[in-house]
């Protein structure tokens, strides 16, 4: 592994550029490098691991039980990369991926306040998952954050929220995080579960598969541990963060009755969805996955996107968890090597066969979790008009509903022009899914038909100075003569 510490060390061209050093990216980079390809693994975090194995090589948390045995598996992925020749660039943001005219790709990257354009023959996007946006009244108050953000603070810096802490939402990660925070010493005064009871009806058909899945034992252990020790409240149908200028409590509705629980920190979580911004901005086709209820890049059996040469591995192309992400990264790397002519099709297939078997095993039972933890409609599209949906531009649910009905705005892209939602620095990461739900609901059409934002590079902000100082590429120098 060649550590890249300044932008000048990045080469002009790589066979494969892998974006993201979570399980999918680490595995893809390792496999590609083992096959003799030149590889750049770029990641915006200071250390490898992605979200699930965040700070695996640097975490100050030393008691292994706090983060659970699964977390420490991430170390093996980094260890596999170490002996290879893959270039690993931490703190490096990829802000653009676009096809170049030579049949490869041009990548815009930024490292240490300097930008560069480089080329890659193949691209593997391993941009992972993000938490599903979860707008409730008051979610912009200081003291409210996502559960994932709390987990980042715990893994990276060994920090837990201070004071009375409430965790609210739905999904297996909610229980995992509640357990981790409690083990790390947080004062958890309530775990508010919004899982709709009727989800069990939908999920039950998928239960037999779940019984044979690797999730079962793990999940039951998590549930039992969390439920046994923590103050659980199920059947939550509405939530509102209270306070002016600062969080003071959370109002919870259960069985038609509301109560306010005083607290200092409120951690929200409504499951995870693919982080699609880079794939979307690169032009990869996407569709609405009805089971996972989210926009998902469309990929084939080798995780190849609609743009030949761009593969999307890991949770960025549909939520499957850390184990499957690593396996998908390997499969994508094998196909990229085949595209580059380094592996014959038969070799690729032979290498892939055992990985695919593992992958099928690791995904068994996923459908049950997806159906069981599908968020309730009122948490996907906030019913209260004053709830802020687009935090960057402070656009409310009421404004979006009004534009969709009165002004006839039919999709998220038009909503940008009318309300500027999705136009801020996060480029719709935090409002996109909610805007789609609100428009779909208001117009009585499906999310698929409503569509999603067409996102634009730079996918992460780059400064004017960085851009102005962009060194000219060979192609640009030649273009002047033209």
């Amino acid at each position, binding site marked *: 592994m060649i550590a890249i510490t300044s932008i000048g060390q990045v080469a002009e061209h790589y066979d494969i550029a892998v974006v993201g050093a979570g399980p999918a990216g680490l595995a893809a980079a390792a496999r590609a490098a083992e096959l003799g390809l030149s590889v750049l693994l770029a990641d915006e975090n200071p250390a490898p691991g992605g979200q699930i194995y965040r700070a695996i090589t640097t975490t100050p948390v030393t008691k292994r039980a706090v983060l659970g045995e699964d977390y420490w598996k991430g170390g093996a992925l980094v260890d596999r990369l170490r002996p290879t020749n893959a270039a690993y660039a931490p703190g490096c943001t990829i802000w653009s991926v676009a096809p170049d005219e030579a049949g490869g790709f041009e990548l815009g990257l930024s490292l240490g306040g300097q930008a560069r354009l480089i080329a890659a023959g193949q691209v593997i996007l391993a941009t992972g998952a993000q938490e599903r946006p979860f707008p409730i009244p008051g979610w912009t108050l200081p003291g409210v954050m996502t559960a994932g953000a709390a987990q980042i603070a715990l893994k990276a810096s060994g920090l837990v929220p201070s004071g009375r802490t409430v965790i609210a939402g739905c999904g297996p990660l909610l229980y995992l995080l509640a357990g981790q925070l409690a083990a790390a010493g947080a004062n958890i005064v309530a775990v508010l579960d919004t899982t709709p009871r009727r989800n069990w009806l939908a999920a039950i058909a998928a239960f037999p598969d779940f019984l044979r899945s690797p999730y079962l034992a793990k999940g039951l252990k998590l549930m039992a541990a969390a439920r046994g020790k923590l103050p659980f409240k199920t059947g939550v149908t509405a939530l509102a963060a209270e306070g002016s200028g600062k969080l003071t409590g959370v109002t919870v509705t259960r069985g038609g009755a509301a109560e306010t629980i005083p607290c200092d920190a409120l951690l929200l979580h409504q499951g995870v969805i693919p982080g699609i911004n880079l794939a979307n901005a690169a032009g990869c086709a996407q569709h609405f996955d009805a089971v996972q209820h989210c926009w998902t890049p469309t990929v084939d059996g080798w995780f190849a996107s609609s743009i030949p040469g761009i593969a999307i591995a890991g949770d960025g192309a549909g939520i499957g968890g850390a184990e499957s992400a690593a396996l998908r990264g390997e499969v994508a790397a094998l196909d990229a090597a085949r595209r580059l002519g380094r592996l014959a099709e038969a070799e690729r297939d032979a290498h892939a066969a055992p990985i695919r078997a593992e992958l099928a095993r690791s995904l068994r039972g996923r459908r049950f979790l997806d159906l069981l933890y599908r968020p309730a409609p009122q948490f996907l599209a906030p019913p209260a008009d004053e709830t802020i949906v687009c935090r960057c531009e402070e656009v409310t649910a009421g404004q979006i509903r009004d534009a969709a009905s009165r002004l*006839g705005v039919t999709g998220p892209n038009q909503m940008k022009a009318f309300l500027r939602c999705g136009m801020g620095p996060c480029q719709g990461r935090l409002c996109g899914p909610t805007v789609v739900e609100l428009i779909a609901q208001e117009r009585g059409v499906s999310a698929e038909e409503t569509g999603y934002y067409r996102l634009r590079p730079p996918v992460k902000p780059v400064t*004017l100075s960085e*851009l102005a100082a962009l060194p000219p590429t060979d192609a640009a120098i030649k273009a002047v003569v033209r």
Partner: protein
Amino acid sequence: MSEGRRSADVIVIGGGIHGCSTALHCALRGLSVILIEKDHAGRHASGVNAGGVRQLARHVAEIPLSNTSMALWHRIEDLVDDDCGFTSDGQVLVAEDEEDLGNCRARVDDLTLRGFHHEELIDAAELRRLVPAVSDTCPGGVVSRRDGAAIPLRATQAFKRKAQSLGADIREGVRVTRVARDGSDWRVETDHGAFLAPRIVNAAGAWADRIAADLAEPVPLEVIAPMLMITAAMPAFIKPVVILRKRKLSFKQFGNGTVLIGGGYLGRAIRDENRTVLDWGKLATNAKTVWDLFPIMRGAPILRAWAGIEARMPDDLPVFGKSTRHEGVYHQFGFSAHGFQLGPGAGAVMAEIIATGSSNVPIDGLGIARFAAPS
């Protein structure tokens, strides 16, 4: 899509600001209208351009249309029931050196002789008053004080909604496949069946050459993708829109603090896929120009860059007016990356020509005949 009418007095092909404006003005004149748009109104050039509402620095041939349009922009809310985000803080052409300023002086003198007075030469002091943040090496420029900017997609959709409210039948998601004579009518075939009208307007933007070719009036239209960038909100520092003559730049700050940077650097247009690819090398040059001219902008984060799909004619002027080959065919396309401001006025003039046969607003030099092959 079988509901709705199949024939009308006028069929407009293309739902950009030009098509929607012509549809609206035809409806205002009592004509029945069907507008056919393959995507949605304002999906391409009209919805994603810089939104400049500019009389400044226009080619003499399009000044009359531009002036007609500007009068409408200043009462846009009366016309379409929406302010379209229009603000009028002027546009300033900054001269970067004395030679540049000399050219500005010659231009303003020429316009004065032709009877146009909207462009005004300014010295360094007035430039600094209007644009305090500009680099102090700039010696002056030209201002057009009634100019400004609007929000492109919002404006286009406002024209669409108003036309619709006056009875125009707007068909979005309908693609024209062929245009042909059918007795005394024109037959517009689409992927949702055929439509008939005695008069058709070709306002199909970057796709208009295909309609023109069907009509045996081929034009050398080039499909281009002008690029734009926008920054995060900056402290308010500039009101007018700034453009340059020597280097490509269009620069403006919105009320919310974000700054739009454009000027016509081209990305790559893939028109059959409704897609564009940016050229970051050229955007870097664009950024460098801003870096030179506005030191305050050097640390600004660029949040988005994009490009629209537009049509450019070889002489950078639009194709506007009657067909030279066919009765009942009108062309309104090829606005060469500066047609947004012209939309309201061009629609009014086109509707006048359709309804009465002619207009008092001169459009000499814009006709399709200039591209006819010599016979």
